[in-house]
């Protein structure tokens, strides 16, 4: 790769702070920090310690006076970070919201265009950047056809093409399957080796990034503002404060969250089974005979059963149809072919096809927790969110309270009962949607990527809760690419492959 024009950047924070507009508390306050040119830093800290804010500040994207209030100085190469556009390249967590243009080449070229790079230099830079991240696709390949890992490498290539002296990564692998994580970490390593750029990466799952970094900084929020709790080589910091970090939710190797005990009861009877299933997110079959070969079918010939007191894990790479399968056995999507049949123990007085049950009738039978919590939020308060199900069942206030209070406490939501669900953190939202599903005590629970992007603490709580439900006789289905969850729940595995 042509490294001309890349000069590693130095970072200085001098009493720097930032308060988002409309918030009383400072996200970062009084931070003192120096990172030398070419250092590779892993930035850790409990949620709310201001890691993301610092990264956004360094990238110069916190915005102006309407967006918030700044204090002190945040310098990149001695100049204010906000004025140093192009010195820093930022890659964010969500692969979908970072794709800017419809074609791969155009997307990578976008940053160069904005920096005013002459046209004849842009395309060589685009090629170099795609080479560096190992994204070997045609320049006119549609960006929407890329996998999650490819999209993150595309975002990285877009940043690299700007030849930044500082690479900032904000949880770049939190939403990826294990293969995608490997792709992105490998790509970042190659870029750093080629350019020598300074790196600051924020990530809960530190093990994948440890081989790449040579310094770990732990931020903490205290009375005196944002402080550096620990700072040094990875071995020194993780060895010294590993237990504390793990308690704060960081995935520290050797301090992983405790797995719950194996099932206490033997597997009981089948709640629901599926045979000869062909699934699709959109297609509705007209003729049963050709339905199985319809173009939108993502997986076919699926046979599985969900048993009471047992966990079933639907695994497989992105795009294999895991979520679609989850929604189909949850009675939300009609199968294209084959059938989903609920046993009388689950269906009660109703027929065996969950798609024919009414919405309200699903509540006590099959609960579903969606991958994106925001899709299923319905109320203005956390407590209201938990009341939705019980109210639809027609329960009285007393019984509703008796169900909701323990759930709020159990999932650490009691102090947030009056908060607006949209204002919660990712982990809190996840706990809320699980609690909302449990409020109607369904016999079977389907969860889509419940541990996606969660810190170690939330992860441990969720897994413990699911194990407990399993032991109480609930049939659990988890759609996941997190092998730890499969192991921790002693789940049976149903692996989907990418078809076509």
């Amino acid at each position, binding site marked *: 790769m042509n490294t001309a024009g890349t000069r590693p950047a130095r970072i200085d924070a001098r009493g720097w702070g930032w308060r988002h507009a409309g918030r009383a508390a400072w996200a970062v306050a009084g931070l003192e920090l120096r990172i030398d040119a070419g250092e590779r830093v892993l930035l850790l800290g409990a949620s709310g310690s201001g890691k993301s804010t610092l990264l956004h500040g360094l990238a110069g*994207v916190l915005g102006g006076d309407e967006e918030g209030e700044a204090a002190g100085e945040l310098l990149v190469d001695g100049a204010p970070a906000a004025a140093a556009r192009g010195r820093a390249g930022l890659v964010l967590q969500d692969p979908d919201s970072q794709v*800017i*243009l419809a074609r791969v080449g155009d997307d990578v070229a976008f940053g*160069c265009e904005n920096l005013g790079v002459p*046209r004849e230099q842009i395309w060589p830079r685009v090629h170099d950047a795609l080479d560096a991240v190992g994204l070997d696709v045609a320049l006119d390949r549609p960006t929407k056809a890329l996998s999650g890992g490819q999209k993150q490498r595309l975002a990285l290539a877009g940043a690299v093409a700007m030849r930044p002296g500082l690479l900032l990564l904000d949880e770049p692998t939190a939403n990826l399957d294990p293969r995608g994580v490997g792709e992105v970490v490998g790509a970042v390593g190659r870029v750093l080796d080629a350019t020598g750029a300074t790196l600051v990466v924020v990530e809960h799952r530190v093990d994948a990034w440890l081989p790449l970094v040579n310094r770990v900084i732990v931020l903490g929020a205290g009375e005196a503002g944002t402080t550096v709790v620990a700072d040094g080589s990875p071995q020194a910091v993780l060895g010294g404060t590993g237990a504390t970090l793990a308690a704060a939710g960081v995935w520290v190797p050797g301090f992983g969250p405790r797995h719950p005990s194996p099932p206490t009861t033997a597997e009981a009877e089948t709640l629901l089974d599926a045979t000869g299933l062909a699934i699709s*997110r959109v297609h509705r079959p007209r003729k049963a005979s050709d339905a199985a070969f319809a173009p939108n079918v993502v997986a076919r010939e699926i046979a599985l059963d969900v048993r009471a007191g047992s966990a079933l894990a639907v695994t497989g790479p992105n795009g294999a149809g895991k979520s679609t399968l989850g929604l189909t056995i949850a009675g939300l999507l009609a199968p294209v072919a084959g059938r989903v049949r609920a046993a009388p123990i689950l269906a009660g007085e109703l027929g065996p096809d969950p798609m024919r049950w009414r919405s309200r009738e699903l509540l006590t039978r099959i609960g579903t927790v969606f991958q994106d919590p925001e899709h299923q939020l319905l109320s203005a308060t956390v407590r209201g969110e938990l009341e939705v199900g019980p109210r639809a069942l027609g329960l009285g206030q007393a019984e509703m309270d008796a169900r909701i209070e323990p759930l709020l406490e159990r999932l650490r939501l009691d102090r947030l009962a009056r908060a607006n669900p949209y204002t919660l953190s990712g982990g809190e939202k996840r706990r809320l949607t699980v609690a909302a599903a449990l409020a109607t005590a369904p016999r079977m629970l389907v969860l889509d990527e419940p541990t996606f992007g969660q810190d170690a603490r939330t992860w441990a709580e969720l897994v413990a809760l699911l194990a407990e439900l399993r032991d109480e006789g609930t049939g659990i289905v988890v759609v996941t690419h997190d092998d730890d969850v499969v192991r921790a729940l002693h789940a049976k595995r149903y692996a989907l492959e990418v078809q076509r």
Partner: protein
Amino acid sequence: MSESAEPFAAERTAGARHGWLAGVNPVAKLAASAVIALPLVFTLDIVSAAVAVVLECVLFLFAGLSWRTFWIRTAPVWIAAPLTGVTIALYGRSSGTVVFEWFIMRVSEGSLELALATFLRVLAIALPSVVLFVTVDPTDLADGLAQVWRLPARFVMGALAGLRMVGLFIDDWRALELARRARGVADAGRLRRFFGMAFALLVLSIRRGSKLATAMEARGFGADTPRTFARESRFGASGWILVAIAAAVSIIAVAAAVATGAFNFILGPQD
């Protein structure tokens, strides 16, 4: 692949995006559609619209579009145009002999003439627009608007990036629908649920939009540096030829109307 400044030209084969028309600058196509539509919007007679439709149909043969693509893409026009005509026939301003009358429906010779003129007009304006835009790629159009017409790049590129999110909104809407069934509130109150979902979608889209804006800003978008363009957008001879052809269609159509005495300028004196 060679590192040419325009690496796509040879590779672009998707869908209808090949043939002479595909190489014409999108801005020229926009201009050509406007040139054809303008006189037709301001007149209301059968002759000008009929002549335009006939000329256009001849030109379509040279557009390099397969028949299948042509009929699929223009199908909505073929449905909408007769419906517009029927509506005008039934409820349009009546004059001359009344042919048929029932409640507020009144079909007269005058309204039938008006209906035919409107029907042809919809075809004459919509068919060329559809045919021209089948071959337009949104990215190319944005490049053209920013470079040929010098519209603010900030606005054009912002709109282009936003357009890409529409697909995500469709996925969001489906998920919102399923989630409401899962939460036990999908049995009744269809209208209320629709508004609830619309609001949720609005919240989601604002969040996605602000994330996208951050990603764009992180790539230097909106900085004071003058922006360059990776893909050159040239109006070129082909653009002028297309606009000239469109102008010829308009001129011939209006001339024919004037020559036959059918010309009816809607802003002119009414007879």
